[in-house]
C-alpha cells in the first residue's frame, strides 16, 4: 500500500509535486485560521451571554427597587397626604413596564421567563393595590386608619411585595446560576481555543516538515542520485539498472542509463576493433611492423618483425632502433632517417640491416612520423620488409642482363670479324678471277669456263655471307632500321622495275596492281629487299611464259602486299618449312641458284619492321603460290603527292626584283643564304654586311626590301641594330637569325621582328619566313 502510494507519487510530474509541496502547509494554515475564527466567535457569544445575564440581573433589581420605593412612597402619602411622596410611585408606574418589556426581550431561559411572568403579574398586583390605596385615601382623606380598606390594602400590598421580593430573589438566584454557567462555558471556550491554536501550530509545523520531506525524498534525493550517476557516466563507468519514476527526473535517469549502455557498447566495439587491429598487426608475418617513440626507442613489436629480425618483443622493446643498423655510424644513420621522416612526414630507405644473430638482410624500410591532432610528434611507425631474395633476384637479373649484353656485344664483334674474315679471302678470289676474266682472250676455252665457275661460285658465296650476316644481325638486334613513312606503291614499282630483266629472260610477265598506294612505316631499303626477294622467287619458281602478280591493299589498319605466281605452288606439307633457312623446294632445286636464305631473311626483315609474312595457296584455286606480307601503316597522314604540290607553289619573292640586306658575320651562313637566294629568288640582289654599323649604312644606301639580321655581331648587338632599324624604317621586315635557341624564345615580334630563325638554318623555314614577310609587305 505504502509502496503503491510512493510509486504513484514518484510518477507524478514535477509540476504536480511542486503544487502538492506548496499546498500542504497552505491548507494547514487556512484550516488554522478558520478554526481560530470559529473559536473567537464562540467566545464572543459566551461573553455576550454573560453581559446579558448581568443586565437582566440589574433590570430585575431595578424593578424591585422601583416597586419598593413606590410602595414606601405610597405609604408616606397615605400618612401625610403630601403629593411629593407620590413621585416614586409615578416613576414606577412609568418605568416598570419599560423595564419588564426590556427583560422579556432579553430573557431566553424558560425558567427565568416563568419567573418574569410571575414578577410581572405580581408587579401588576402591586401597582393595582397601590392604586386602590391611593383611591381610598382620596375618598377618606386623612383618617386612613378609620378606613378598613386601607388597612386591608396595606396588608395585601405587603404580602404582594413580599411575594414579589421572593420572586425577584428567586429570579436573581436563577440569573446567578445562569451567569455562573455561562462564565464556566466562556472559560471552557477559551481553554478550548488555546488548545486548538496549539494543535494547529503543531499541525502547521508537522505539515511543513512533511512537505519538505516529500520534496526531499521525491526530488532532491533523486537529483542527487542523478548527479552521482552523471559523475559515474563522466568516468565512463556503467550505471546500474534502477527503479525510477516516470516524471522528468525519472526520464532523465532513464536517458542517462541508456547513454551509459550506448557508451559501453561503443567502448566495447572500439576495444574489440583495437584488439582485432592489434591481432592483425601482430599476426602479420611478412612485414615487420613496429612503433618507435619520438627518440627512436622501440615501443611495439609484431610477429613479422620477430621473424625478420630475430628479436622477441620483450628483448627489444625499449631499445633504440639503431640496433638494426650495421656499422659504426648506425646511430647517425638511424637518426638521419628519423629526421627525414619528421621533415617529409615519411621516408623510405633500402639498405642492409642487421638481425639479432648478426646476419645481414637487405631491407626496404618505410618510416612514417606519427602526429597527434595538434601536430605534436608522438613517435614513428616503421614497416620493414626483408627483400634480400628480391634483391638477389634483381642482382641475378642484372647479372643475366649484363651477360646477355656481353654476349650480344661478343656476337656483334664475332659477326663483324666473321664478315671480315670471310670477305677478305673472297676479295682476292673474286678480284683475281675478274682480272683473269679480263685477260681471257689469250686463254683456252676450258680455262675461261673455269674462271667463270670461280666467279659464279664466289659471288654465290658472297651473297650467302651477306644474307647469313643480315639474319644474324637482325637476330642480334644489330641491324639498324630506319623506319620512316614509305609510299608502298613507289617502292613496289621500283622493285618491279629491277626485277623486269630477270623476268624478261624467263619470258614472264609482271602485273602490278597500282590501284592503292598506302604509306607504310618501314625501312625503305629493307622493304625493297623483301619485295625483290619475293619477286625473284616468284620468277624463279614460275613456269616459262608464266605470270607474276603483285598487289597492295589496306586491311585492318595494315598494308598487305601479295605476290602471286603461276608456278607449281607449294606442297602444303612443306609450307610450314618455307621460311626456315636453307629450305629449297625439291621441284625448284634442280635449276635455281638462290642462297636458300631469301625467305628467312625476308621474314626477319618484315618482323623487324613490325610486320608479318606468310604463304597461302592461291585464292582463285589456280596452280601457283601466293606470298604475302603485312606492314603497319605510317601514322603520318600526309601523302607524298602533297609534297610536290607544296614545292611547286609560286613564291612571291621569286618573281620580284628584290634587295635583301644580310647582316651576318659568319661566312658559311652568309654563303648558304646567298646560295638559297640564288636558287629561289633569281632576281634578288643580296647585300652582305659583316658588321652592325656597316649594315645600318647599307640599309640607308640601298633601301632593302628585307633584312636578315644575325643577333650576334662583332661590334654591336643585333638587338641594338633591330632597334635602330625599327625606328628608322618601321615598315622594313627584319628576320632575325640566332644560334641561341633560348634567345629565339623571346618576344621579338613586339620589338619589330618579322620572324626569328634558329641556326643551323632550315632552308624551308627561311623560304617561308621570307615569303611571309614580303607577302605581308606587299599587301
Amino acid at each position, binding site marked *: 500500500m505504502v509502496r503503491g502510494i510512493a510509486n504513484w507519487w514518484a510518477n507524478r510530474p514535477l509540476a504536480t509535486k511542486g503544487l502538492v509541496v506548496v499546498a500542504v502547509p497552505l491548507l494547514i494554515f487556512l484550516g488554522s485560521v478558520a478554526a481560530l475564527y470559529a473559536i473567537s466567535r464562540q467566545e464572543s457569544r459566551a461573553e455576550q451571554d454573560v453581559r446579558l445575564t448581568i443586565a437582566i440581573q440589574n433590570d430585575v433589581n431595578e424593578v424591585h427597587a422601583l416597586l419598593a420605593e413606590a410602595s414606601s412612597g405610597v405609604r408616606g402619602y397615605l400618612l401625610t397626604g403630601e403629593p411629593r411622596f407620590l413621585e416614586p410611585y409615578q416613576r414606577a408606574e412609568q418605568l416598570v413596564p419599560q423595564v419588564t418589556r426590556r427583560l422579556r426581550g432579553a430573557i431566553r431561559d424558560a425558567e427565568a421567563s416563568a419567573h418574569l411572568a410571575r414578577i410581572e403579574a405580581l408587579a401588576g398586583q402591586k401597582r393595582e393595590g397601590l392604586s386602590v390605596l391611593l383611591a381610598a385615601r382620596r375618598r377618606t382623606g386623612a383618617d386612613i386608619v378609620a378606613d378598613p380598606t386601607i388597612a386591608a390594602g396595606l396588608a395585601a400590598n405587603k404580602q404582594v411585595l413580599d411575594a414579589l421580593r421572593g420572586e425577584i430573589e428567586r429570579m436573581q438566584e436563577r440569573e446567578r446560576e445562569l451567569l455562573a454557567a455561562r462564565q464556566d462555558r466562556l472559560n471552557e471556550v477559551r481553554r478550548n481555543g488555546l488548545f486548538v491554536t496549539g494543535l494547529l501550530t503543531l499541525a502547521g509545523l508537522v505539515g511543513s516538515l512533511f512537505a519538505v520531506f516529500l520534496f526531499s525524498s521525491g526530488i532532491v534525493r533523486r537529483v542527487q542520485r542523478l548527479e552521482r550517476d552523471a559523475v559515474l557516466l563522466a568516468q565512463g563507468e556503467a550505471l546500474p539498472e534502477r527503479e525510477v519514476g516516470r516524471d522528468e527526473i525519472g526520464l532523465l535517469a532513464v536517458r542517462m542509463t541508456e547513454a551509459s549502455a550506448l557508451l559501453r557498447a561503443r567502448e566495447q566495439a572500439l576495444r574489440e576493433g583495437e584488439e582485432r587491429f592489434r591481432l592483425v598487426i601482430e599476426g602479420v608475418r611478412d612485414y615487420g611492423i613496429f612503433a618507435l617513440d619520438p627518440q627512436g626507442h622501440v615501443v611495439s613489436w609484431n610477429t613479422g618483425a620477430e621473424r625478420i629480425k630475430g628479436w622477441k618483443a620483450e628483448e627489444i622493446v625499449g631499445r633504440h632502433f639503431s640496433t638494426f643498423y650495421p656499422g659504426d655510424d648506425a646511430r647517425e644513420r638511424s637518426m638521419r632517417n628519423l629526421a627525414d621522416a619528421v621533415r617529409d612526414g615519411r621516408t623510405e630507405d633500402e639498405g642492409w640491416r642487421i638481425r639479432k644473430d648478426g646476419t645481414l638482410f637487405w631491407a626496404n624500410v618505410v618510416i612514417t612520423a606519427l602526429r597527434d591532432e595538434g601536430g605534436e610528434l608522438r613517435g614513428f611507425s616503421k614497416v620493414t620488409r626483408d627483400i634480400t631474395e628480391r634483391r638477389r633476384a634483381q642482382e641475378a637479373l642484372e647479372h643475366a642482363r649484363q651477360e646477355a649484353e656481353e654476349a650480344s656485344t661478343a656476337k656483334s664483334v664475332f659477326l663483324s670479324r666473321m664478315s671480315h674474315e670471310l670477305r677478305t*679471302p673472297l676479295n682476292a678470289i673474286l678480284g683475281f678471277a675478274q682480272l683473269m676474266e679480263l685477260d681471257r682472250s689469250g686463254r683456252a676455252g676450258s680455262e675461261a669456263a673455269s674462271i667463270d665457275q670461280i666467279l659464279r661460285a664466289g659471288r654465290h658465296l658472297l651473297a650467302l655471307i651477306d644474307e647469313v650476316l643480315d639474319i644474324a644481325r637482325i637476330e642480334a638486334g644489330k641491324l639498324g632500321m630506319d623506319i620512316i613513312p614509305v609510299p608502298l606503291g613507289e617502292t613496289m614499282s621500283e622493285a618491279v622495275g629491277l626485277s623486269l630483266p630477270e623476268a624478261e629472260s624467263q619470258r614472264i610477265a609482271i602485273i602490278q596492281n597500282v590501284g592503292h598506294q598506302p604509306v607504310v612505316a618501314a625501312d625503305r631499303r629493307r622493304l625493297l629487299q623483301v619485295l625483290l626477294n619475293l619477286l625473284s622467287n616468284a620468277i624463279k619458281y614460275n613456269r616459262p611464259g608464266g605470270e607474276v602478280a603483285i598487289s597492295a591493299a589496306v586491311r585492318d589498319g595494315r598494308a598487305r602486299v601479295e605476290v602471286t605466281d603461276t608456278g607449281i605452288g607449294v606442297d602444303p606439307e612443306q609450307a610450314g618449312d618455307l621460311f626456315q633457312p636453307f629450305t629449297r623446294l625439291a621441284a625448284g632445286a634442280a635449276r635455281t641458284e638462290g642462297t636458300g636464305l631469301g625467305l628467312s631473311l625476308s621474314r626477319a626483315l618484315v618482323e623487324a619492321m613490325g610486320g608479318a609474312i606468310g604463304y597461302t595457296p592461291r585464292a582463285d584455286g589456280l596452280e601457283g603460290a601466293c606470298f604475302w606480307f603485312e606492314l603497319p601503316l605510317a601514322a603520318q597522314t600526309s601523302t607524298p603527292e602533297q609534297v610536290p604540290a607544296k614545292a611547286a607553289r609560286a613564291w612571291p619573292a621569286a618573281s620580284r626584283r628584290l634587295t635583301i640586306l644580310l647582316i651576318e658575320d659568319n661566312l658559311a651562313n652568309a654563303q648558304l643564304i646567298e646560295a638559297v637566294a640564288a636558287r629561289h629568288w633569281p632576281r634578288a640582289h643580296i647585300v652582305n654586311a659583316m658588321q652592325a654599323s656597316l649594315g645600318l649604312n647599307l640599309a640607308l644606301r640601298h633601301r632593302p626590301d628585307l633584312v636578315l639580321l644575325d643577333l650576334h655581331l662583332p661590334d654591336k648587338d643585333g638587338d641594338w641594330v633591330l632597334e635602330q632599324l625599327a625606328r628608322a624604317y618601321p615598315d622594313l621586315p627584319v628576320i632575325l637569325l640566332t644560334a641561341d635557341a633560348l634567345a629565339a624564345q623571346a618576344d621579338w615580334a613586339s620589338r619589330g621582328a618579322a620572324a626569328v630563325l634558329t641556326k643551323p638554318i632550315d632552308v624551308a623555314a627561311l623560304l617561308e619566313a621570307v615569303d611571309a614577310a614580303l607577302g605581308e609587305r606587299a599587301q
Partner: protein
Amino acid sequence: MIPPRSATDARILAIDDEPANLALISAVLLREGYSQVETLTDPRQATERHLAFGPDLVLLDLMMPSIDGYALLDSLGRLIGPDDLVPIMVLTADTSIEAKRRALALGARDIVTKPFDVFEFALRVANLVELRMMFQRVKAAAALS
C-alpha cells in the same frame, strides 16, 4: 713548283694486312697503268712510310689485327694536314652503314667494301687520283700567281 705529272705517275700507297689483297690491288693498279704503287702489310709502319713515300693516294684497310684502322685513318689525316689534299680510300669488309659513316667522317674520301668489283675499284681510284691532280694544279697556279 711541282712539275705536272700524268695520272699514271701517281704514287699510291696501299696498306692491308692481307698479302693476297695487296697482291690483287697491285695487279689491278698495274693493269690500269699506275707505275708507282707501294704496298705495306704492317700498319704500324704506315706513318713512317707515308712520310717517306709521299703518296698521292692512300688505300687503307680498316680491319687489321695489330691496330685500330680508324685511329690510323685519323692520324694519317692529321699527318697530311689541312693545307694539303691526299685522298684516302678506305677498303673494308664491314658493310654496315655505321662503319661507312665513321670512316667518311674521319676524312676518308671514298669507301669500298670488300670484296670489291675490280672495275668499280679501278674507276674510284682514278677519280681520287684526278682529284689529287686537280688540287696540285690549283696549288701550282696559286703559287705562280
